[in-house]
């Protein structure tokens, strides 16, 4: 007869294996269903007409999302232009300069900033940033620059926390060796610490990009959602995420399939960014 404890141990183990497999199952389901809905239109209309098509009129058979792909990249670059220098500076300050008290203030502040829902960012953007841009720079205010500003702040926590981890993991001996050669603190940071933390810092930028490109609710409130490629910082634009969120509630037939095709493109971009970021981080650990 088999011991009951042994039986129970086996039972628990298999239950846990099943739990662990559930993550993979969910990932598979998400892929399968988004691809399953999104790919047929690529086959029917042609990938070229969707990805490079300029005209989006899904009820009339035009499914071009090229302007949205470009717009998504533009807001992401804009967000990075604002978020990357500010975020990296904060991370350097936190890891190299700040005293214990400032650290006790900054770290929770950054975590709380990460917790603020994106609709709140969108709302404050509409109430404060959009009129500011309209009054001082012109245009409607619903623009590339407003969206970039808000997204730049939203990706700060991601950039700060990941590049902070990278900076802190630079061995102390590097700093000591550099200081021993008479380098000032900034020379040490600039010539020794940042180069050794480079891959982690890059990974933080790329993950920040991933966050910006995937952001939805704040973007549809601020971006203006116009269907063309913006030609200036003051032009409104519509991102891939915005396209899905704006029309999913009422779309039917090929129109709905086209939104899933938009989702497929978004998913491929995000997966590529995550792959690059994880590769960068892994290389850092290997070193």
């Amino acid at each position, binding site marked *: 007869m088999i011991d009951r*404890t042994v039986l129970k*141990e086996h039972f628990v183990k298999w239950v*846990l*294996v099943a*739990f*662990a*497999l*559930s*993550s*993979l199952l*969910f*990932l598979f*389901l*998400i892929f399968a*269903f*988004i691809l399953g*809905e999104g790919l047929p239109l690529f086959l029917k209309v042609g990938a070229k007409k969707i990805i490079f098509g300029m005209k989006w009129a899904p009820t009339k058979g035009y499914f071009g999302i090229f302007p949205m792909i470009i717009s998504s990249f533009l807001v992401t670059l804009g967000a990075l232009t604002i978020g990357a220098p500010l975020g990296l*500076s*904060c991370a350097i*300050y936190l890891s190299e300069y*700040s005293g214990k008290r400032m650290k006790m*203030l*900054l770290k*929770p*502040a*950054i*975590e*709380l*900033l990460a*917790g*603020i*829902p*994106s*609709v*709140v960012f969108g*709302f*404050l953007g509409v109430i404060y940033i959009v009129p500011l841009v309209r009054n001082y720079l012109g245009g409607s205010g619903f623009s590339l620059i407003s969206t970039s500003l808000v997204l730049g*702040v939203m990706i700060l926590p991601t950039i700060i926390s990941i590049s902070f981890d990278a900076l802190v993991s630079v061995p102390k001996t590097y700093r000591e060796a550099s200081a021993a050669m008479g380098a*000032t*603190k*900034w*020379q040490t940071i600039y010539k020794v610490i940042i180069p050794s933390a480079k891959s982690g810092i890059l990974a933080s930028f790329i993950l920040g990009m*991933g966050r910006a*490109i*995937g952001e*939805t*609710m704040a973007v549809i*409130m601020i971006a203006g959602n116009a269907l063309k490629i913006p030609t200036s910082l003051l032009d409104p634009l519509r991102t891939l*995420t915005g396209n*899905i969120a704006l029309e*999913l*509630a009422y779309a039917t037939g090929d129109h709905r399939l086209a*939104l*899933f095709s938009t*989702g497929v493109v*978004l*998913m491929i971009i*995000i*997966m590529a960014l995550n792959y690059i970021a*994880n590769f960068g981080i892994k290389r850092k650990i290997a070193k």
Partner: protein
Amino acid sequence: MRTNPRIINTLVRWGLNAQAYFTVAILVVIIGIIFFKGFPQVNFGFILSFPQDMGRHGGIFPAIVGTIQLALLSILLATPLGVGTAIFLTEYTRESAFTKLIRFGVESLAGIPSILYGLFGFIFFVIKLRMGWSLLAGVLTLTIMILPTIIRTSEEAIRAVPRQLRIVSYSLSASKWETIKKVVLPAAMPGILTGIMLSIGRAVGETAAIIFTMGSSLRLPLSLMESGRTMAVHFYILAREGISMEKAYGTAVVLVLSILFINIIAYYIMNKTIARYS
């Protein structure tokens, strides 16, 4: 002529200091505006009464209840799955191709933006499984979405439990599962709780994934198959459709305050744990 490196050093220090304060200032300004504009709107009537005329008048009671239902039910589902996965990854296997595969799955889930969860939940739960816009569809979508957070934080917490505790337990002839249940999990509990609190915070603030799965009915969801509205969704609709700025600010205060409260508890628990282990 070269600039003195010491002068550059000082200037850089000031610059970085200013940027750090600027980041804190952003948070203070955001919270300040929300509180300053929103607090006058909030009273017991606002919290406990039903909205009237699409939310133009009245309170946000159903949205508060909807938020609590959604957050608690998805935590109830995600916690056993997530902690179970973490136990499996830390206690039952060595690093292998299999654990790498599972980690890849978890990392990928964590990277997927919420609008894609919304898209998936809409086509899978709402349409294919015929749940319709319902609390259940929202809960299931959100469960998958918060799972990576719970797995990661639990895994870290379980790994931080000292090996000696396990060895002592085994030496008292406890089995593996007994050791995990009575020794490892209690020791890792604060870390696991931190993950749970952070996930609740995320559930409360989520919009994109919820609006296409749970819908936005203003009625109080009385069963799993009914549609409902969370505070975040209610706030979004009030603000975007320009229904009422006052009520939007009022909702924002309750929403942001709940999230801040939840996150502060999470960090309090975490800091206490860090203090204990170091």
